[in-house]
C-alpha cells in the first residue's frame, strides 16, 4: 500500500486577514482583525449566520447564540449537530417535549435487554460500551441492528443485518409483532400515550414476511427481538448516526420511540431511550440555544413567556419565529440571502455532505470569519481567521455529555501565541458593534445562563465539582433529580402525568440515492476506533491501528470486481468520484461498501455522499449513497522481452 502522507495541522498563533480571497493571508494585530470582523458583519446585517461549535464549552455556545440574537438580531445560529443528531433531538422533543436521551449510562448496567440500533459503540463510543459490557456481564441480552456485522454486533445475542435505510420497516414490523402477540403495555399506552389506534393501523401491513423481504432480516430474528424487548422487565434502546444520518432521520427516531411507548420502556430506572452523541458538547450546544428554534434551556422561541424573559434579561427584542438551520443557511448562501458567516470551530467545507457544493457556497459569501485552533479547509476560505483556544484543555467552562451530565472542563495548558478564548473574542466583536458583553470569567456566563434556564438553575460550579457533574434537569440547588427523564408518564394523577407522548405516524421511505445497474453498490459511512470526524484532531497522534482511508468491500464483491487489498480503485457516485485503496472486510455483506470521513485530505468521501436532507431536522443522508467500483487501468510494467528467447 502506498506510503501515507497524513496532513497534520499546526496551531494558529495569530490573527490572519486578507483583502481579497485571491490573496494569501497576512498576519494582523488583534485590533485590525477584530475591526475587519466588525465591518464585515455590520455591512451584512440581516444576512448573517452563526455556526457555533459542538466542541466548544456551554459558555461559548451561550455567548455565541446571544451574539447572533442580540448583536445581529437573528435566530440563524446552528452547529454541526445538524449533521449528526438533530433528528434525535427533534424526535425526542416531539414525543416527550425534551430533546435529551432519557436514561443514564449506569442504567445500562442494570437492564435486561439492550438494543444497539445503527450504533457501533464499541468503536465510536468505547467507554459507553464498557457500561453495555457490564450490563451483559450482569445478564442483559444485547441485540445489534446494523447493516454491518460490527465489533458491537460481535457481543450481541443476535445481529439483525438490515438493508441500509429500512429501519422504519423493521421497527414497524417489531411493533406489529408486539401488538399481535399481546405484549403491548396496555395500561401505559392508555394512560401515557396518544395515537395508538393510528399507529396500530400504520404498522398492520408490516408482517414479518413483508419486513423480511424489505429489510433482508429473517422473520424469526425480527420476532425474537420483538418478544425479547417487549417481555423484558427493563430495556434500553440506544442508537447513533445509523438512525439519524438519513433523509428521514427524524422519522427513524420516531419509529424507535414508538417501540418504547408501546412497551412502556421509558421513564423508569433501567428503561429508556439513549441516543449516543458524537461530539463532546453536541448536547450542550443545543441546550445553550445554539440552534435556530430554541432559546437557552431548550425553551421554544415561539413560547411568548420564555421570549419575554430573555428580552428583559438581554434588553433586546427577539423575533417570534425560527431562524435558519445549518442546512438552510447553506441554501441561503446559494441564493444570496445569507452573505456573512461567523464560523466557530467547525469545518463544514469537509464535514458537509456533497462537500464540493459546500465549498462553492462558502466562496459566494461576502464575508467569512473563522475562529478555530487550526487553519482548516474552511478557514482557508475565510476573509479573517481568529486563533482560539482549545475548548477542552485551554479553557474554563462546562460541557454536557450524552447522558445530560454537565461537567467542568478546565484549563490545563497555556494556549500558544496570541490565541484567545472564544468568549473574549466574541465579547470584543460585540463591543465594536455597540453591545456591552462583559463577563469576569466563564462562571459569570454560566451564572447568567442559570438565571435564565430552569433546567440548569441548580448547577453551580461548586456543585458540579462536588458531584463530578450533574445531569439536567436540576432546578434546585439543594437536591438532585432522578437519573432518568419522564417519570411523570407513570404518575396516576393525570395532572402530574402531563402531556401524553404521541406515537409517531411515520412511513417507510427508502434512501433517496437508489442503486441501479450503473451504481450497484450501497455505500455507508461511519467511524473507526482511533480516528475522529474530519481527522483534524486525531491526525495528530501516531496510532498503530491507523491505516488511512479505504473503500471497504465484502469478500464476495472484491472477488467479483477482481480487486485485492491495497489496490487503488475508482469509486463513483452520482455526485463525484474519488480513488481509494481497497480493504476487504468480512463484516460487510455483498452489495454493501463502507468508508469513513476521517481522512478528507487523502480521500474526500463527502464528494460521494448525497445532500438529501431530513425535512424536519436538516440532517443529510450520509449513510446511504449509491456507488460503483471500477478497477483502474494497471500501470503496465514493461515485461522483459522473454518471448524472443528460448531456454
Amino acid at each position, binding site marked *: 500500500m502506498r506510503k501515507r502522507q497524513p496532513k497534520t495541522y499546526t496551531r494558529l498563533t495569530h490573527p490572519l486577514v486578507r483583502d481579497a480571497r485571491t490573496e494569501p493571508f497576512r498576519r494582523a494585530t488583534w485590533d485590525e482583525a477584530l475591526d475587519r470582523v466588525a465591518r464585515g458583519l455590520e455591512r451584512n446585517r440581516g444576512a448573517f449566520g452563526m455556526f457555533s461549535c459542538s466542541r466548544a464549552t456551554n459558555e461559548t455556545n451561550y455567548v455565541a447564540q446571544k451574539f447572533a440574537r442580540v448583536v445581529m438580531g437573528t435566530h440563524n445560529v446552528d452547529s454541526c449537530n445538524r449533521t449528526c443528531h438533530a433528528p434525535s433531538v427533534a424526535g425526542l422533543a416531539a414525543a416527550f417535549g425534551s430533546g435529551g436521551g432519557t436514561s443514564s449510562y*449506569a442504567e445500562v448496567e442494570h437492564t435486561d435487554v439492550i438494543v444497539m440500533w445503527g450504533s457501533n459503540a464499541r468503536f465510536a463510543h468505547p467507554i*459507553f460500551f464498557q457500561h453495555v459490557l457490564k450490563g451483559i456481564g450482569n445478564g442483559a441480552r444485547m441485540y445489534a441492528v446494523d447493516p454491518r456485522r460490527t465489533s458491537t454486533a460481535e457481543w450481541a445475542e443476535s445481529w439483525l443485518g438490515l438493508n441500509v435505510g429500512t429501519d422504519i420497516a423493521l421497527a414497524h414490523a417489531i411493533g406489529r409483532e408486539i401488538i399481535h402477540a399481546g405484549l403491548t403495555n396496555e395500561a401505559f399506552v392508555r394512560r401515557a400515550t396518544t395515537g395508538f389506534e393510528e399507529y396500530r393501523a400504520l404498522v398492520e401491513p408490516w408482517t414479518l414476511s413483508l419486513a423480511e423481504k424489505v429489510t433482508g432480516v429473517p422473520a424469526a430474528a425480527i420476532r425474537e427481538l420483538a418478544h425479547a424487548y417487549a417481555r423484558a422487565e427493563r430495556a434500553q434502546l440506544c442508537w447513533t448516526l445509523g438512525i439519524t444520518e438519513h433523509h428521514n432521520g427524524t422519522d427513524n427516531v420516531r419509529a424507535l420511540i414508538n417501540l418504547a411507548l408501546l412497551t412502556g420502556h421509558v421513564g423508569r430506572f433501567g428503561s429508556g431511550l439513549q441516543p449516543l452523541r458524537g461530539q463532546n458538547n453536541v448536547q450542550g450546544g443545543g441546550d445553550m440555544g445554539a440552534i435556530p428554534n430554541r432559546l437557552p434551556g431548550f425553551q421554544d422561541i415561539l413560547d411568548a413567556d420564555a421570549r419575554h424573559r430573555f428580552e428583559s434579561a438581554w434588553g433586546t427584542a427577539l423575533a417570534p419565529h425560527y431562524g435558519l438551520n445549518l442546512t438552510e443557511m447553506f441554501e441561503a448562501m446559494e441564493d444570496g440571502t445569507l452573505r456573512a458567516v461567523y464560523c466557530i470551530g467547525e469545518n463544514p467545507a469537509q464535514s458537509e455532505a456533497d462537500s464540493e457544493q459546500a465549498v462553492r457556497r462558502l466562496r459566494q459569501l461576502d464575508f467569512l470569519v473563522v475562529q478555530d485552533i487550526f487553519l482548516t479547509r474552511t478557514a482557508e476560505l475565510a476573509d479573517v481567521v481568529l486563533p482560539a483556544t482549545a475548548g477542552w484543555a485551554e479553557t474554563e467552562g462546562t460541557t454536557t455529555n450524552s447522558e445530560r451530565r454537565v461537567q467542568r472542563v478546565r484549563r490545563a495548558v497555556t494556549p500558544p501565541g496570541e490565541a484567545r478564548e472564544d468568549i473574549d473574542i466574541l465579547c470584543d466583536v460585540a463591543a465594536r458593534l455597540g453591545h456591552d458583553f462583559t463577563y469576569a470569567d466563564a462562571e459569570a456566563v454560566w451564572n447568567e445562563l442559570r438565571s435564565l434556564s430552569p433546567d440548569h438553575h441548580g448547577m453551580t460550579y461548586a456543585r458540579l465539582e462536588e458531584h463530578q457533574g450533574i445531569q439536567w434537569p436540576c432546578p434546585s440547588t439543594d437536591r438532585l433529580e432522578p437519573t432518568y427523564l419522564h417519570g411523570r408518564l407513570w404518575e396516576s394523577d393525570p395532572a402530574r402525568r402531563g402531556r401524553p407522548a404521541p406515537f409517531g405516524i411515520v412511513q417507510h421511505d427508502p434512501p433517496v440515492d437508489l442503486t441501479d445497474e450503473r451504481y450497484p453498490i450501497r455505500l455507508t459511512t461511519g467511524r473507526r476506533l482511533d480516528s475522529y470526524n474530519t481527522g483534524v484532531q486525531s491526525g495528530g*497522534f501516531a496510532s498503530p491501528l491507523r491505516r488511512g482511508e479505504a473503500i471497504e468491500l465484502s469478500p464476495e464483491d472484491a472477488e467479483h470486481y477482481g480487486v485485492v487489498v491495497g489496490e487503488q480503485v475508482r469509486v463513483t457516485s452520482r455526485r463525484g468520484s474519488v480513488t481509494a485503496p481497497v480493504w476487504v472486510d468480512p463484516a460487510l455483506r455483498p452489495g454493501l461498501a463502507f468508508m469513513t470521513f476521517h481522512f478528507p485530505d487523502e480521500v474526500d468521501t463527502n464528494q460521494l455522499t448525497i445532500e438529501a436532507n431530513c425535512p424536519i431536522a436538516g440532517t443529510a443522508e450520509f449513510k446511504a449513497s449509491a456507488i460503483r467500483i471500477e478497477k483502474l487501468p494497471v500501470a503496465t510494467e514493461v515485461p522483459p522481452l522473454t518471448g524472443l528467447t528460448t531456454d
Partner: protein
Amino acid sequence: MTVTPLGIPRRLVEFTLDGEPVRVPEGSTILDACRAVGKDVPTLCHGDTLTPKNACRVCMVEVEGSRTLVPACSRRAEAGMEVRTRTERALHSRKVVLELLASSVDMSTTPRAAEWIEEYGADPGRFGPDAARLQEQPRIDNELYVRDYGKCILCYKCVDACGEQWQNTFAISVAGRGFDARIAVEQDAPLPDSACVYCGNCVEVCPTGALSFKTEFDMRAAGTWDASRQTETTTVCAYCGVGCNVTLHVQDNEIVKVTSPHDNPVTHGNLCIKGRFGYQHVQNRD
C-alpha cells in the same frame, strides 16, 4: 429523592482493629477499614477498580484465630473480628515479600517502594548476586506505550483490566506456568500484531511502571521526567459525546500523560485510544 435505587440497606459491622473498635458497612474489606481510619497498609496488586487478586501478599495482617496471615485487600470484615496490622509476624512477612519482589524485579519506578523498603527494614540484596532476576529489555514496538517486563511483579492487574473486568479485549494474558509464568501479549506477540486497541487501561492500573506511556518512558530515559513539576488537571475529553473525564499531566506546558479519575461515574478510570493518546493536536504549536 435518591439518585439511584439504593438496594438493600447495608448494615454496619463492628470489629476490633489494632485494639480499637471500628464500624464499617457490611461487605467492606479490612483494607477499606484501615484506610477509613487512616492506617497505612502497603498494597501493590490491589486496584480500586478491580476485584482483588491476592497476588502480591504485601498487605498481610493478622486475624485472631486464623492459622495464617490474611490479605487485607480481599478479606471482608466480620463482626467481632480482632485484626492486628502491625504484629511482628505481619511486619516480618511484609519485609520478606518486599525483599523477594525487589530482588527479582526492578522497582525503581514503583511509587512508595523505596519508602516501604526502608520502613520495614527490607534488604533486597541479602539473597546475593545469584538471586533469580528477570533480565528483560523494554519492548518498544509502537509509539504509544512501552512494556518493560523487568519491572513486572505478576500482579495480573493488566490482565484483568484488558480482560473481562473492563476492556474485554483480552490482548494481555499469562504465558507459561509456575516459575515460568509471565505477562505476555497473546502468544508473546508484538503489540501491533495483537488484538490490542491501545486504550492504555492496562497502563492506568500498572503498579510498578512495567507498563508506561512512551512519553514518560522517553522522558525518563532522557532524564527530563519530573513528577514534582507536573500539574494534574481534570477536564473532559474532546472526542465523542460520552464525556469521559481525563486528567492531563502537564510538565512545562506539554501534556505528558493522560489518566482518568478512578471514582468517575462515566469512566471508572478507563479511556479509549483517542482520549488516552489523542492530545497531540493541541500542542502542535509550530
